[in-house]
C-alpha cells in the first residue's frame, strides 16, 4: 500500500482503533482509557497536519476499495475535506479533554468513549468521502454512533430524545439513499469533482435532477436541521454536554451542512445548480431557518435549548452561503463552517460547566454566574458576541463575507435576513450576559458540585477547552489574513470551485 493510502486510512484508524479497544476495556481501566483517547486525538491532529502540508504542496491522498462491481468506496483528502477534517480533529481533542473531566466518576464510560471515537471516525469519513456512496456510508455510521451517546443517561427523557433523533435521521437517510442510488443509476460511480459532474448529463435530465436535488437536500437537511426538519435537535439536548458539543459543533449538524456543500459544489456544480434554479429555493429555506431558529431561541429558558435553537439558525448561515451564487458567498459559507463550530462548541462547554459545577440549567438561574465562574463566563461572552457578529470575533468575519456574497449574488433580501438574525441573536444572548455579569449571585446555587479551588473556579479539564476555543474565536478574526487561517483555506477552495476567478 502506498504511503499516501496508508496515511489517509491512518486518519480513520486513529480514532477507530482506540475506540474499539476502549469498548472492551473494563470500566476501571481509567488511566489506559484516557491514554488511548488522548493518543488517538493527538495522533489524528498530527496526521491531519501532515495532510494539510501535503495537500497545499500539491500531494494527492486517496484510497479506493471496490465493494461491488461499479461501486467504489473512496476516501480522499482534498481542500474541502481538509477544511472539515481539521476542524473536527482540533475540536475533538478539546472535546475529549472536556469529556474526560465531565464524566469523571460516572458509569459506562467505556461505552461512552467507544461510541465517541466511532462518532469522530464517522465524521472524518464524511469529511474525506470521495463520492456520494462513501459519504452515505459514513453519514449513516454517524447516525448509529451518536444514538448511544444521546441516550447515554438511560432516563426516559433521554430515550425519548434518542427515538426522535433516530426517527428524523434515519428517515432523512432513506431519502438521501434514494437520491444517491438514482444518481448512481444515471451516471455510474463518479467521484466528487470541482465544478460538479452532473452538468455532463445535459438539460434533458433537468426535471429528474431537480427532484433528486430535493431528495438529497432533504436527506442532509435533517442533520443540518433545516426548518422544517429540525425537530430532533432541541430534543437531543438531553445528552451530556460533551455530546451536545459534538453534535452541534463538530459532527452531526456539521455533517449535514458539509453535505449541502458537497452536493452543491462537487456533485451538481454551483453553476449548473444555478442554471437549474436550485439555489434560490435553497437560499429561501436557509433564510427561513435562520430567522425561525433565532426567533424560537428567544423564548427558551433552558440554556441548552436556547443554544440548540441558536444552532438551528447559525448552521443555516452555512447553507445560505452555499446558496449565494458567487465566490464571495461561497467563502462566507465555508468559513462559517469552521467559525460556527469553534464558537458553538465554546458555548456548549460553558453551558456544561454551569450545569456540572453549579447545577444551573436555566437562563433564569444564571444570575451572578460571572462572579462565581469568571473564566467560563468570559469564554461564553466571547463566543456569544461572536455569534452576534461583533467585531474582532470569528463571527464578524463570516458575516461580512456572507453580506458581501448576498450583494454579489444580487440577493439583497438575504442581507436583511442576516441583519435580522443578528438583532435576534443579540436579543437572546445579551440578557444572558447581563444576568451573568451584572446581577447579584444567589445565596445558594441549585446544586453546587464542584467547589472553587482558589482562583480555579472548576475542574481544569472543564475550564481549559472553552478558554482555548474562545481564544481561537478571536484568533480566527485577528489573523484572518494569514496564510493558515480558515478564511485563507476557504478562499483557496472557492477559487477552485469557480475555475480560478477569485476576489
Amino acid at each position: 500500500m502506498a504511503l499516501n493510502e496508508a496515511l489517509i486510512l491512518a486518519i480513520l484508524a486513529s480514532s477507530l482503533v482506540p475506540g474499539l479497544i476502549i469498548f472492551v476495556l473494563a470500566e476501571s481501566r481509567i488511566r489506559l482509557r484516557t491514554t488511548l483517547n488522548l493518543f488517538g486525538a493527538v495522533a489524528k491532529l498530527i496526521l491531519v497536519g501532515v495532510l494539510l502540508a501535503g495537500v497545499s504542496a500539491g500531494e494527492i491522498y486517496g484510497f479506493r476499495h471496490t465493494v461491488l462491481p461499479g461501486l467504489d468506496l473512496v476516501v480522499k483528502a482534498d481542500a474541502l475535506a481538509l477544511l472539515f477534517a481539521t476542524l473536527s480533529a482540533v475540536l475533538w481533542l478539546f472535546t475529549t479533554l472536556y469529556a474526560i473531566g465531565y464524566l469523571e466518576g460516572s458509569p459506562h464510560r467505556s461505552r461512552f468513549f467507544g461510541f465517541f471515537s466511532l462518532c469522530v471516525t464517522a465524521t472524518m469519513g464524511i469529511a474525506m468521502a470521495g463520492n456520494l456512496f462513501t459519504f452515505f456510508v459514513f453519514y449513516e455510521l454517524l447516525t448509529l454512533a451518536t444514538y448511544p451517546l444521546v441516550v447515554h443517561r438511560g432516563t426516559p427523557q433521554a430515550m425519548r430524545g434518542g427515538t426522535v433523533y433516530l426517527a428524523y435521521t434515519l428517515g432523512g437517510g432513506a431519502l438521501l439513499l434514494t437520491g444517491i442510488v438514482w444518481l448512481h443509476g444515471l451516471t455510474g460511480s463518479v467521484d466528487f469533482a470541482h465544478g460538479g459532474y452532473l452538468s455532463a448529463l445535459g438539460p434533458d435530465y433537468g426535471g429528474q435532477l431537480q427532484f433528486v436535488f430535493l431528495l438529497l437536500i432533504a436527506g442532509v437537511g435533517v442533520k443540518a436541521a433545516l426548518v422544517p426538519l429540525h425537530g430532533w435537535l432541541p430534543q437531543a439536548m438531553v445528552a451530556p454536554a460533551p455530546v451536545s458539543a459534538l453534535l452541534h459543533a463538530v459532527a452531526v449538524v456539521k455533517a449535514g451542512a458539509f453535505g449541502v456543500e458537497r452536493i452543491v459544489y462537487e456533485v451538481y456544480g454551483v453553476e449548473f445548480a444555478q442554471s437549474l434554479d436550485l439555489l434560490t429555493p435553497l437560499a429561501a429555506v436557509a433564510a427561513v431557518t435562520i430567522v425561525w431558529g433565532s426567533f424560537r431561541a428567544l423564548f427558551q429558558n433552558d440554556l441548552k435549548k436556547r443554544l440548540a435553537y441558536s444552532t438551528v439558525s447559525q448552521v443555516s448561515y452555512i447553507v445560505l452561503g452555499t446558496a449565494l451564487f458567487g465566490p464571495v458567498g461561497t467563502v462566507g459559507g465555508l468559513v462559517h463552517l469552521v467559525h460556527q463550530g469553534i464558537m458553538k462548541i465554546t458555548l456548549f462547554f460553558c453551558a456544561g460547566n454551569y450545569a456540572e459545577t453549579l447545577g444551573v440549567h436555566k437562563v433564569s438561574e444564571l444570575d451572578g454566574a460571572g462572579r462565581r465562574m469568571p473564566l467560563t463566563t468570559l469564554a461564553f461572552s466571547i463566543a456569544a458576541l461572536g455569534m452576534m457578529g461583533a467585531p474582532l470575533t470569528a463571527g464578524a468575519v463570516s458575516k461580512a463575507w456572507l453580506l458581501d456574497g448576498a450583494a454579489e449574488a444580487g440577493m439583497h433580501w438575504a442581507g436583511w435576513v442576516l441583519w435580522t438574525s443578528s438583532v435576534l441573536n443579540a436579543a437572546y444572548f445579551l440578557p444572558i450576559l447581563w444576568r451573568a455579569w451584572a446581577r447579584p449571585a444567589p445565596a445558594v446555587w441549585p446544586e453546587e458540585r464542584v467547589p472553587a479551588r482558589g482562583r480555579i473556579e472548576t475542574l481544569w479539564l472543564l475550564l481549559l477547552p472553552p478558554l482555548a476555543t474562545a481564544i481561537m474565536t478571536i484568533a480566527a478574526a485577528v489573523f484572518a489574513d494569514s496564510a493558515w487561517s480558515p478564511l485563507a483555506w476557504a478562499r483557496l477552495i472557492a477559487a477552485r470551485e469557480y475555475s480560478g476567478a477569485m476576489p
Partner: protein
Amino acid sequence: MTDPIAWLILLPLFWATAAFLLGPGRGARLAIAALLAQCGLALQLAADVIDGGARTHAVGGWGAPLGIDLAVGGLSALMLVLTQAIALPLAVYARAYFADGAPAVRYFWTLTGFLLAGLNALFLAADLFNLYVTLELVGLAAVGLVAAGGSARQVAAALRYLFAALVGSVMYLLGVALIYGAHGTVSLQTLAPLVDARAPAAVWIACGLMLAGLMLKTAIFPFHYWLPPAHGGAPAPVSALLSALVVKASFYLILRLSLEVFAPLAATAATALGLLGAAAIAWGSWQALRTVHIKMLVAWSTVAQLGYLFLVFPLLAPDGLALQAGVMQAIAHGLAKAAMFAAVGVLMLATGRDTLEGLAGVAGRMPLTLFAFGLAGVTLMGLPPSGGFLAKWLLIEAALTHGQWGWVAVVIAGGLLAAAYVFRVLRQAFLLAPADSPFHPVPRSMEWTAFVLATASMLLGLQGVELMSLLAAGS
C-alpha cells in the same frame, strides 16, 4: 477422489450417523471438527467454480436423465459456503449452550448433521425428484430440532411446522409428477430446453404447485403462520439454524427453478410474488413491533426479511442487479439472523427472562452481546457498511433502472420499520437496570460466536466484489 461436491453431502451424513451411534447428547467435538473440514471443502469448491466455472458430478456414473446429477454453479457455491460458514460458529455456540445437558440436546447433533447434509444436497441437486428427497430431509430434521425441546409450546410449533412442510412437499411432488408426465424426465438440465411459454397447461399447473409448495416452506406471507412459533420457540442455536439457513433453502429453489427451468413461465407470477414480499415486510414488521417476547420479535423479523427476497422476482432482468440483490440479502440476512438469535439466546440465559422488559440494563452488563445484536440489527435495517445495505442498494438500483418506483418505496419503508423494531430492543437495553434483577454469567464463547457472526454480516458489505464474481462464475 476428493471431489468436494460429493464430500459436502457424505461428510455430514457420516458424522450425523456417528453422533447417533455415540449416543444421546454426544458428538459435539466431532461435529465441530467435521464442520471445519466442510468449510474447507466449500471454499475449495468455490475456488474451483471461480477457476473452472460450473460443473456437475454424475452420481452412479450414469449422468442425467437416467441417473442423478449433482451440479454446482456460482449461486450454489455461494449458498454452500454460507451454510458451512454459519453452521461452524453455531456449532461452537451450541456446544456451550447445551453444556447443561438440557433435554433438547439428546439428538441435537445427529439432527443437525442430517439437516446440514440435506441443505448441502439441496444446494447441489439438479434433479426435481432428488430435490423432493432433500426437501424432506431438511424438513424432517428441522421439525425434529424444533420438537426436541419437548415442551407443549414447542411440540405444537413443531406440528404446525411439520404440516406446512409436508403439505408443501406433497404439492411440490405433484408438480414433479406432472412434469415427469409431460416431459418424461426430472433432470433440470434436460428439462430446461423443453420448457417454453407455449407449455401445456399441465406444466403451468405443475409450476404453480411447485411454487406454492416452496412458498409454504419459505414461509412467505401469507404462508408465514407456522414460522414465528417454530423459530421463536426453539432453543437459540436451533432458531438460528432455521432462520438463517432452512427458509433460505426453499427460497433458493424458487429462485433457481425460476431462473434455470421455468424462466418462460416464472415472469407471469413475478409481480404477485413481489406484492407478497411487500405484504410480508409490512406484516412481519408490524408484528415485530407489537410482540413482547424478544425471541418472537426476532422470528417475526425473519418473516419481514424474507419479504425482501421476494421483491427480487419482479425485478429479475439480464442486468443481474436483482439477482445480486437477492443473493446478497440471503447471505447477509443469514449471517445477521444467526448472530441475532445467538445474541438473544445469550441475553435470555443471562437475564433468565424472555421478554423485552427483561432486557433493561444489559447494555452495561453484556456490551459485547448487545453490540453483536446491534451490528446484526444494522444489517437488517440495511444501513452501511453491512451486506444488507448492499442488498438494499442493489434492489433500489434495480427498481429505479426499470422505472418501478413502488418497490423503492417498499424497500425504504422496510428498512425504517426494521430500524423501529431493532431499536425497540436496543433502547430497552440502554435503560437502567432494576437494582435487584438477577444475572447469570454466560460462557464467553457464546458471546464471541454471536459477535463473530454479526461482524461477518457487517464486513460482507466490503467484500461484494468477491461474492458477485463467484455468483457470476458458472452462470
